């Protein structure tokens, strides 16, 4: 295997994990954009999605397509339910209360999963099967090609949704200025719920893709994934949709690069080092707009 094909393989490794990070980071960014909340339970929604796939496919022996659709639907419902139960009553509270609630929800989901499903990881059945692709001597797995394609399509659809539809316009308006949007007759509660639904649906898609690539479901699988996606969102500029995509791919490629250089043990350290550097040097991230505190 030549140096060139090793580089090509490593780039695809990075793009694959990067596209999952990007999908998760989008959920973080959209929710933050609209109610200024860092939804730390977002990673755990992915964990629930993975368990849904596991239950349907391993336990009930249903086909993968049903498992995937149910996981996306389940995550969407869970996201909206969390918003209604845990965050909506706190809409007028200080942002810190909201943040702590998000951490509480995250702990709740992780421990509930541990209680119900056990602490060990569950082996996931094969979700998608296909022949691997050879580019020269480089070997690209079918799963990573599917992951990258599915996430790019999802991101394109999301961009269309936000830019071209009425609901997207409402989302942008609410994130710009919630009070003015309300005065213009936009239903704030519905818009916020819709944002949570879209973000969680993305998490559901990420859960399915993640389960294809890393076929195990465990109660804490979402926490590190969520944290890294959070770094991706901050790097791209939290609140910005294209920023989250760029940040996700950047973090994925960076991890692959660090591991390829033989520093795999430092992978997490480098990612969180990026978070610190971004927060010091350019807190608004790559695509972030300059934010003026509303008075």
């Amino acid at each position: 295997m030549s140096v060139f094909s090793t580089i090509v393989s490593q780039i695809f490794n990075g793009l694959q994990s990067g596209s999952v990070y990007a999908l998760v980071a989008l959920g973080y960014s959209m929710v933050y954009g609209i109610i200024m909340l860092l939804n730390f339970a977002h990673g755990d929604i992915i964990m629930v999605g993975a368990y849904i796939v596991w239950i349907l496919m391993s336990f009930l022996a249903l086909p993968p397509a049903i498992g995937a659709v149910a996981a996306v639907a389940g995550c969407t419902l869970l996201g909206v339910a969390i918003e209604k139960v845990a965050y909506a009553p706190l809409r007028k509270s200080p942002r810190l209360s909201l943040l702590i609630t998000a951490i509480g929800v995250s702990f709740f989901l992780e421990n509930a999963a541990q209680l119900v499903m056990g602490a060990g990881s569950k082996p996931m059945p094969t979700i998608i099967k296909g022949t691997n692709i050879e580019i020269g001597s480089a070997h690209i797995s079918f799963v990573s090609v599917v992951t990258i394609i599915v996430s790019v399509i999802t991101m394109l659809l999301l961009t269309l949704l936000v830019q071209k539809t009425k609901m997207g316009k409402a989302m942008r308006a609410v994130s710009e200025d919630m009070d003015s949007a309300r005065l213009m007759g936009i239903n704030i509660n519905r818009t916020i719920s819709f944002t949570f639904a879209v973000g969680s649906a993305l998490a559901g898609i990420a859960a399915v893709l993640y389960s294809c690539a890393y076929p195990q479901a465990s109660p804490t699988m979402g926490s590190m994934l969520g944290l890294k996606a959070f770094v991706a969102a901050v790097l791209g500029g939290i609140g910005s949709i294209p920023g989250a995509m760029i940040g996700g791919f950047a973090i994925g490629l960076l991890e692959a690069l660090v591991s390829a250089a033989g520093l795999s043990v430092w992978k997490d350290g480098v990612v969180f080092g990026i978070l610190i550097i971004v927060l010091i040097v350019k807190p608004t991230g790559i695509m972030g707009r300059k934010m003026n505190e509303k008075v």
Partner: protein
Amino acid sequence: MKKFISVALVLVFVLSLFAGCGSKTPASTQPATSAAPQGGTGTIKIGVLGCTSGDYAQYGNAVIHGAQLYIDKVNAAGGINGKKIEYIIYDDKGDPTEAVNAYNRLVGNGITALLGSVLSGATAAVVGEANPTNMPMITASATDAGVTYNADKKLVYKNVFRTCYIDPFQGQKMADYASQKLNAKTAAIIFETGNDYAVGLKNAFIAKAKANGITVVAETAYSKGDKDFKSQLTNIKAKNPDVIFCPNYYEDDGMIVTQARQLGIKSVFMGGDGWANVYKYASAADLEGSIFCSSYAPGSTDEIKKFEADFKAKYPNETPNMFSAQGYDAAIVLLDAIKAAESKNLKVGSAEYKQAIIDGMKNTTSVGLGGKYKFDEYNNPIKNAVIIKLQGGAEKFSEVF
């Protein structure tokens, strides 16, 4: 009214005092079982120590039940030299302090040898007490090298033996297997950094592989909790090794094999006993041909089949495993040594008697489920490893190596 309240309060306090007493009965001070009635030409008392409650109870119960199975069998056949073996079981909960307390109680009960403890930490603590008094001791499951050998003082604890092999042993065995059986010329390693078990196996493998003329072309690490190994594996793929040594636990091993096959790596995967149960965590096709070593192969020999049947008959709710087999073997080695001591006409429990048991274990010729036992200069067993091969999605016994 005031009086009534004060009387009621006193009553409540008194009651709570009783309640407190009731719940205070410590589990570890009660002998769980003591078999064989006194009589005949006397009994030989031994202590059995292990964690029968707490987080690691599954290991403790397996070891102790395995040992009990053999001791009861010997007693049923008339004991040793007409004397029954009386064993006292104490629970140390896997805790070093509890283990020392329980051991001291056992000494107070007049034991002449100890089988235990189960976890390395608890066993090492007991060794600290048992070594100065030359108490014969055998553990079935403490794999830490320090249990029988103090590396700082270069001192072997002469009274302590074990029937399980120590962590580095597996790395050496697999390096030998790679060169002798697989004719491997190159090897790569992927291991979890910061995990004593994985690092111990890895270091032993590398040292032995080099001695065997195998070139280690890549040595890559990952951190606990990592799920993505593709970057490391891509680097390994570029080196195209004959074998990949993967001395980690089964969940990670399954993930590593799956991702390696996705990247088109065709090398043979090898691992240690942490691989047991890996068949659930990767597809049959991906695992096909992978090899790991263990000290126990279910149903592989007639002796093991007999042991399994007896074990299930005695403990219908448990499955015999590696730990129960090692407990059974520890009892065999110990009782054979006691037999040797008995033949010398010494007084049971005397210092000479204990020394005779220790000598008996040191020069053991016992044959257990794990084959013929022989101890090296560090009192670790020189025994064969059982090689398990993944075939058609099942972990199949391949050979004794």
